[in-house]
């Protein structure tokens, strides 16, 4: 079947292969604040400022020296999760596409539902922490729901 916006199937396994280590790495970096010295590098930025959440001036298109461990973990996770989520299933046909769409709607609902709850009940710096996780919930929920649905129909 002709599909738009989906990667070839081979990227799915590739994605799974990287998703597990990148999840572990991401959580490890988050909880331990692991930032090795050699990853402190000059980075070109679109927008930056002295300290997060401070009142230092905003600077556009400058180069700053910063530790990129967080960024590496995030990029690594996002790329592998996107490969898992948006590679074609082995037999992507119109029925699987429908299941994909329904899973995406379900995931979007819950993702923004969680955001709504967070907006109302999480405050200050904790909201910032909450948002870090909320950046990834859409993809995580979609991967979970879609593959659960595929597993269920496979068993029929």
């Amino acid at each position, binding site marked *: 079947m002709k599909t738009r916006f989906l990667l070839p199937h081979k990227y799915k396994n590739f994605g799974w292969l990287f998703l597990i280590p990148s999840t572990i790495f991401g959580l490890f970096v988050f909880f331990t604040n692991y930032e090795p010295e050699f990853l402190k590098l000059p980075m070109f930025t679109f927008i930056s400022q002295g300290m997060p959440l401070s009142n230092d001036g905003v600077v556009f298109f400058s180069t700053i020296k910063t530790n990129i461990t967080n960024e590496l973990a995030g990029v690594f996770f996002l790329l592998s999760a996107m490969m898992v989520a948006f590679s074609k299933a082995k037999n992507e046909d119109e*029925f*699987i596409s429908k299941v994909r769409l329904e899973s995406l709607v379900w995931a979007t609902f819950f993702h923004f539902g969680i955001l709504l709850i967070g907006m109302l009940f999480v405050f200050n710096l904790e909201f910032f922490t909450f948002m870090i996780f909320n950046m990834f919930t859409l993809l995580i929920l979609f991967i979970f729901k879609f593959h659960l649905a595929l597993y269920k129909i496979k068993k029929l």
Partner: protein
Amino acid sequence: MKNNLKIERAIKNITQEELAKLIGVSRQTINAMEKNKYVPSTVLSLKIARLFNKKVEELFFLEKKD
């Protein structure tokens, strides 16, 4: 919408897997259609009709709630 795919498949004596291969979809799609959980696209319905040498109306039927 209802259909009699299962009956036609039995008459032709082919499995879900074989039918799926012949029209280029997954076995799960055939299964979902037979269980009335999935309404196929026009293209897919026409392909199935051609395979069974029937008119689409002889395979798929509207229900009251449609």
